[in-house]
C-alpha cells in the first residue's frame, strides 16, 4: 500500500547548494546555545532571514521573474534540512517561504504576485496564517470570522487565535467566511491577505509554557481591506487551503524538531564515555529511525517534484515523524536520569526540558495526529 512512496535520491545539483547554506547556518547559530537552537522554527531573527534572502535561499521554488530561484522541491529540502539540522532561527520567513509564496504564485493575480513575491524572496516581508479561532480548531470549516463586501473591497470582523508569529508578521493569509454560515461547512470560505498594520487589527501575543510568546490572538474590528485582498477565488478557500497541505506536512521540519537535543545528548554520552548497552541501543534506535524518516521525507519530496500532491503520504510521514520527535525528549530524559550520579550540563538540561515541554505541539501544529490518521485511513479505503 502507498507504493508510490519509494526511495529517492537528492539530485546532485540540489546537493550542490549544501556548502553555501551550511556556512550561513553555522554563522547564524555560532552565538546561540542549544536551548535557543532547539527553538529553530519558533526562533525569530529578521536579520538572518534577510541574509538568506540576499543569498538567494528564500523562494527557491518560485520563478526567477518574481525573484525566486526557479528550483524544485529537492533544492528546498536541502536548504531546509541544513537550516533545521543545527537549529537556525527560521521563524521570520518560515510561513512566507513555505506556504504563502507558493499559494500566491498558484492562486494570486499577476499584480499580487508582483507585489508580494519579490519582497518575500528578499526576506523583507513576513507572513502568518490565520486558521484557528476560539471555536474552530481541527474543525476548520466552522470558522466564523467574516469578510463582507463593501464598495471599496472587504470589511473583516472576528478573531483568530494560536496564530504563530502574528506579532512579528506583516501580513496574514486568513481563512474567512465570505458567505453563508458555519452550517455551510466548506462552502462560502475564502482566503484574504490581511495587512496587519491596517486600522482595526489588534495582535496580542500569548505566553506559552516554555516562557516564550510564539503565537498570538488577532482581533479584527471593522478592518477595511481593498478588493485585491482576496487571494484566489471567492468561496474556494477550503480547496486552496487543502491543496497546499502536502507541502506543509512532509518536510524535514516534521522530523528534526528534537534533533538539536539529540545531538546535545550524543555529545554528552561521548564526553561521559558511556557504553552501557541500553544507552547504546537507544542511540542506534534513534539513528535507524532518523535515517528512515529522512528517506521517507525525501520520498515524499520526490512526489512533489513530479507535480503530485501526496496528501496521504505526507500525513503518514508527519505522523511517524512527529511521534519520533516526541519520543526523543522522553527517552533522553529517562536515559540521563537513569544515571543520577553523572553530571548533566545546565544547557543540556534546559534544552531537554524545553523540548519536553513544547513537544506536545509537534503533533498539533499543521494538523493533529488524530486528523492525520483519519486522512490515512481514508487513503486506505476505510470509511
Amino acid at each position, binding site marked *: 500500500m502507498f507504493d508510490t512512496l519509494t526511495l529517492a535520491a537528492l539530485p546532485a545539483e540540489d546537493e550542490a547548494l549544501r556548502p553555501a547554506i551550511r556556512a550561513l547556518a553555522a554563522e547564524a547559530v555560532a552565538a546561540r546555545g542549544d536551548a535557543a537552537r532547539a527553538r529553530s522554527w519558533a526562533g525569530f531573527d529578521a536579520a538572518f532571514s534577510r541574509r538568506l534572502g540576499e543569498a538567494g535561499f528564500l523562494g527557491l521554488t518560485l520563478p526567477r521573474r518574481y525573484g525566486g530561484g526557479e528550483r524544485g522541491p529537492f533544492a528546498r529540502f536541502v536548504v531546509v534540512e541544513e537550516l533545521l539540522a543545527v537549529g537556525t532561527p527560521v521563524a521570520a520567513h518560515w510561513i512566507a517561504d513555505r506556504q504563502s509564496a507558493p499559494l500566491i504564485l498558484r492562486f494570486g493575480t499577476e499584480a499580487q504576485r508582483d507585489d508580494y513575491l519579490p519582497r518575500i524572496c528578499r526576506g523583507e516581508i513576513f507572513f502568518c496564517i490565520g486558521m484557528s479561532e476560539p471555536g474552530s480548531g481541527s474543525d476548520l470549516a466552522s470558522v466564523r470570522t467574516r469578510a463582507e463586501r463593501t464598495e471599496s473591497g472587504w470589511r473583516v470582523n472576528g478573531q483568530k487565535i494560536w496564530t504563530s508569529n502574528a506579532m512579528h508578521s506583516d501580513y496574514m493569509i486568513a481563512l474567512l467566511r465570505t458567505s453563508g454560515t458555519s452550517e455551510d461547512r466548506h462552502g462560502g470560505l475564502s482566503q484574504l491577505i490581511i495587512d496587519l498594520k491596517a486600522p482595526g487589527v489588534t495582535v496580542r501575543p500569548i505566553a506559552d509554557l516554555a516562557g516564550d510568546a510564539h503565537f498570538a490572538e488577532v482581533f479584527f474590528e471593522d478592518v477595511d481591506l481593498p478588493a485585491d485582498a482576496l487571494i484566489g477565488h471567492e468561496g474556494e478557500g477550503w480547496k486552496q487551503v487543502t491543496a497546499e497541505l502536502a507541502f506543509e506536512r512532509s518536510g524535514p521540519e516534521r522530523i528534526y524538531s528534537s534533533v538539536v537535543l539529540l545531538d546535545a545528548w550524543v555529545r554528552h554520552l561521548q564526553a561521559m564515555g558511556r557504553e552501557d548497552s541500553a544507552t547504546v*541501543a537507544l542511540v542506534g*534506535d534513534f539513528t535507524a529511525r532518523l535515517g528512515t524518516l529522512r528517506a521517507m521525507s525525501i520520498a515524499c519530496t520526490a512526489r512533489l517534484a513530479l507535480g503530485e500532491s501526496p496528501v496521504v503520504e505526507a500525513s503518514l510521514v508527519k505522523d511517524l515523524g512527529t511521534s519520533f520527535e516526541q519520543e526523543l525528549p522522553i527517552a533522553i530524559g529517562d536515559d540521563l536520569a537513569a544515571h543520577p550520579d553523572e553530571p548533566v550540563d545546565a544547557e543540556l538540561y534546559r534544552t531537554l526540558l524545553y523540548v519536553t515541554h513544547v513537544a506536545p505541539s509537534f503533533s498539533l501544529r499543521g494538523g493533529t495526529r488524530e486528523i492525520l490518521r483519519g486522512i490515512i485511513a481514508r487513503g486506505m479505503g476505510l470509511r
Partner: protein
Amino acid sequence: MMDHDALLSPFERMLETVAAPAAVRAVEAGGDTDAMWDAVAGSGFLDALVAEAAGGFGLPVAAVQPLWQALGRHAVPLPVGETMIARALLADAGAPLPDGPVALAVAAPGQTVVVPLGLVARHVLVEQDGRLALVAADGAEATGVACSLAARMRWDRLDGMLPAPAGGLRALAAVLRAALIAGAADRLVAMTAAYANERAQFGKPIGRQQALQQNLAVMAEEAVAARIASQLGCAGAWPPSLAAAATAKSVASRAATRVAATAHAVHGAIGISVEHDLHLFTRRLHEWRLADGSESWWNRQLGAQRLTSGAGSVDYVRAELAAPA
C-alpha cells in the same frame, strides 16, 4: 539493467501460481517441495545476484529487493532469497553452485542455532569464525513450533571454508529478512483493511470506527517505514554497510511486531484460527524478527558505531543512509 517492474511482474505472477496459500500450507504440513522449488529455480531468478561473468543476472541488490518483498508477500515456504545470497557468495569465491534450496546460518562450532527454513533446505551456508562453509542440511531438528519450517542445527568445526563477506553473513541475511518483513507487512495491511471494510458490528463495517481507523493508519505507517528501511538496506554497497543492514533490520523488526499485533486485533478470533490465512504472514513476521539479530541487537551495533562519530545526527544519517544519487 532491466527495469525493476519488468523483473517483478513475472516473478510475482510465478509466485501467485506456485505459492498460493494452499501450497504454502501443504509445505508447512510436511508435503513435497519439489514442484514449488522447480518452478522458482526454472525462472532463473536464483542467480539474480550472481555476476554476469559467472552466468547470473548480475543485478544490483536494489533491483532484487522488490523480489524479496514479493517472497514475503506470498509467505513463500522455501529459502529462495537465502539461496540467491548463497549462490552469489559461492560464485564470487569460484565455488561450485549446489542444486536445491540453501539456508543461511551463523554458528560457532558446537553451538545450536535456529535456522529459518532449515527443514526444507538441502544445504546450509554456515558462517563459522568469520569463514563460510557449504554443508548438507543433515541433522535438521524441528523446533516443535507449530507449522514452522525452522530447524535447530549445530555443526562441529567445519573445513573447506571460504572467506566470509565483509561485515559478515548476518548483515546480508538481515537485509533479506527486512525485505521479507516489508512484503508480509504490506500483505497484512491490505488484508486487514479489506477485512475491516467487510466485517460489520454495531450495524456498520468496523472500519468505520474511528478507534480502528487510527490503529490501521499506524499499521500502514509502520509497514511503509519497514519498506523504506528495507530499501535503504539495499540501496548502497553489497555486502551492505553496518549502518544500512542495522537500519533495515531494526526498523523492520520493530514494525513486524506492531503490524502483526494490529492485524490480529482487527481480525478478532478468526485470525487466531488455523483455517484463516492470517497466521501464514504474522507467524513469519515474528520468526523473521527473531532471525539474524532483533531490533535491539542491530540497535546496539549501530549505536556503537554512531557514538564513535563526531558528526551531527543529520550529517551522520546523510552520509551512512541515503539513496545514491
